[in-house]
């Protein structure tokens, strides 16, 4: 192959549109590649819309109907009613905001904090690694559920932000450890060494060279920790250790089991099953969608768009 001589004039540069594919376009392509992913995506969108617009669909006090206490499933009450004759569907829809917002905040905190800690510990090694890892170990050994129970006595969990923060605090440790171990192996790879040799800043190396290589893992973890957070908070409400400030799915479960006796009387069964159904559906959506996340962040799959 003849090597061009730069002594010859370099062709006048003409700007050319970027031929690559944007991240969002590629992401959309990977979602629509399989039916199951579309279903998962649709479920997630449905619940997101529910969380955003749900409370606006109903008046702030849901209508009570004393003639229809624990009513069975019907056209008027698609999921039955509760102990006051309030539609379960309405309860599910209005209760989604707190549950999902707290879970999303918790997962976001877990992922961001865990990733940054893991990246720093894994890349800089040495003393920063030791310090961060000891802190991580400390948080990992805290049994999160009892801690939440204790904290709930002193903390107001009325706002999802407080709940999300607590959920995140107790769960970032595992994420940090996993990201650290991936970073440890990536930092020995040739491209990181090359970047160091080229004099690029540690910040650039960490967040532009290494981070994209763990992004699919992080993306998947974001989704799985959302489900984890939902179960943790719903569990807290179900156990009744957190004061009921707002209507949500956990409160419904608690009331169904401990007040309505759903375990023994079939009348209250719709009241018990409707929040469970919502949880199940959301988890299913996330699991189906997870499959697409790996592909989204994989550059090898961007070419054939």
């Amino acid at each position, binding site marked *: 192959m003849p090597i061009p001589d730069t002594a010859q004039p370099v062709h006048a540069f003409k700007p050319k549109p970027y031929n690559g594919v944007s991240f969002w376009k590629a992401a959309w392509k990977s979602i629509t590649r399989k039916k199951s992913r579309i279903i998962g995506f649709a479920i997630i969108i449905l619940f997101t819309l529910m969380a955003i617009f749900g409370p606006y669909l109903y008046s702030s006090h849901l209508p009570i109907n004393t003639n229809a206490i624990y009513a069975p499933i019907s056209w008027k009450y698609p999921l039955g009613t509760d102990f006051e004759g309030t539609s379960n569907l309405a309860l599910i829809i209005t209760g989604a905001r707190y549950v999902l917002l707290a879970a999303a905040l918790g997962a976001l905190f877990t992922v961001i904090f865990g990733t940054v800690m893991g990246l720093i510990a894994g890349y800089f090694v040495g003393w920063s690694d030791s310090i961060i890892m000891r802190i991580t170990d400390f948080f990992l050994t805290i049994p999160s559920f009892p801690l939440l129970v204790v904290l709930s006595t002193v903390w107001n969990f009325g706002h999802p932000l407080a709940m999300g923060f607590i959920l995140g605090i107790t769960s970032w440790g595992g994420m940090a450890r996993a990201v650290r171990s991936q970073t440890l192996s990536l930092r020995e790879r040739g491209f990181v060494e090359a970047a*160091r*040799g080229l004099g690029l800043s540690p910040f650039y190396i960490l967040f532009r060279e290494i981070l994209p290589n763990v992004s699919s893992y992080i993306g998947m973890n974001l989704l799985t920790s959302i489900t984890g957070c939902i179960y943790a908070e719903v569990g807290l409400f179900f156990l009744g250790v957190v004061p009921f400030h707002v209507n949500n799915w956990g409160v419904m479960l608690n009331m169904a089991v401990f007040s309505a006796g759903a375990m023994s009387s079939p009348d209250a069964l719709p009241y018990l099953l409707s929040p469970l159904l919502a949880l199940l559906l959301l988890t299913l959506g996330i699991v189906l969608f997870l499959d697409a996340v790996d592909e989204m962040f994989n550059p090898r799959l961007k070419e054939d768009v």
Partner: protein
Amino acid sequence: MIEIKNLQKFFQIKAKFSNHKTVHAVRNVNLTISSGGALCLIGESGCGKTTIGRMLCGMERPSSGSIIIDGQDISRLKRGARAKLLQKIQLIHQDPYQALNPTHTIEQMMKATLKKVAKQKKKDVDWIRQRMDELLKLVGLDPETILFKYPHMLSGGQRQRVIIARALTVEPEMLIADEVVSMIDVSLRLGILKLLRYLRERHNISILFITHDIASARYLGNDTELYVVYKGMVIERGRTERVIRRPQHPYTQALLSAMPILKGIEKPGKDRFVITSQFKQSEEETRGCLFADRCPFKQSICDEKQPELIHNDDAYHACFFPKVRQVAAESI
């Protein structure tokens, strides 16, 4: 100009239930590369040639000895100044499949360093664009088709060209080519070697070529120097042609004998011999010649004393019984 003086490197190998072992990876290496010059290190795997290269570009710290770049001893410099100086020496990795970030397009990775350089030179975005085009054309790639591609869409040879182009963004004075062609398809090797030679001749970039393949060392130019390294020690050095045609050290001869020949076109050298015993990183230091345990021409003195690198017949060698043997292939 880059000078290495009495460079030594020890590696501590941590063993769990016994004493720590020390491997003497580089022994008293001296070398000088003038600007625009080329030097070739050859030796088998594990002989320390890569370690020399890694110490030169700052990825490994020498145990003792000094590396002098343009008259400045890098171990005496402060961190920032050293990093700046070391940027003049760029390492081209052996494995082109590892050296490019799989999540970046070629444009992204070229831009990352060019942005930094542009900032230092106070140039604008157009300059970055132009320079990117220029460098990719220089290494023989078409910028239009390659810029938006990801590394996995490229062949090994193209990747190695991209890596070289990326190294050139910081305007280095020297490239360390560490086995650059060993992982590339045979049909593409020559292109890379010619590119390195071109960079040397036209752009005055000196090259430290690390290889185990003597044939490829010859492509870098007529004035290259060849250093044969064995167990971290330079055992023979001289002009490449001189060493290949008239090797004096038995180890060099063994290396040359191991080269495959074009059967039917070439015939093996008449003094050709093959060493069957394996290369061992011995734990205890020998008093004698490092090569003594494998040398077919060993005498009793070889176990007693270590030969020094001495000048003889316009080349240097470290052997008590140097003898020119005809081991390179001859044409029929």
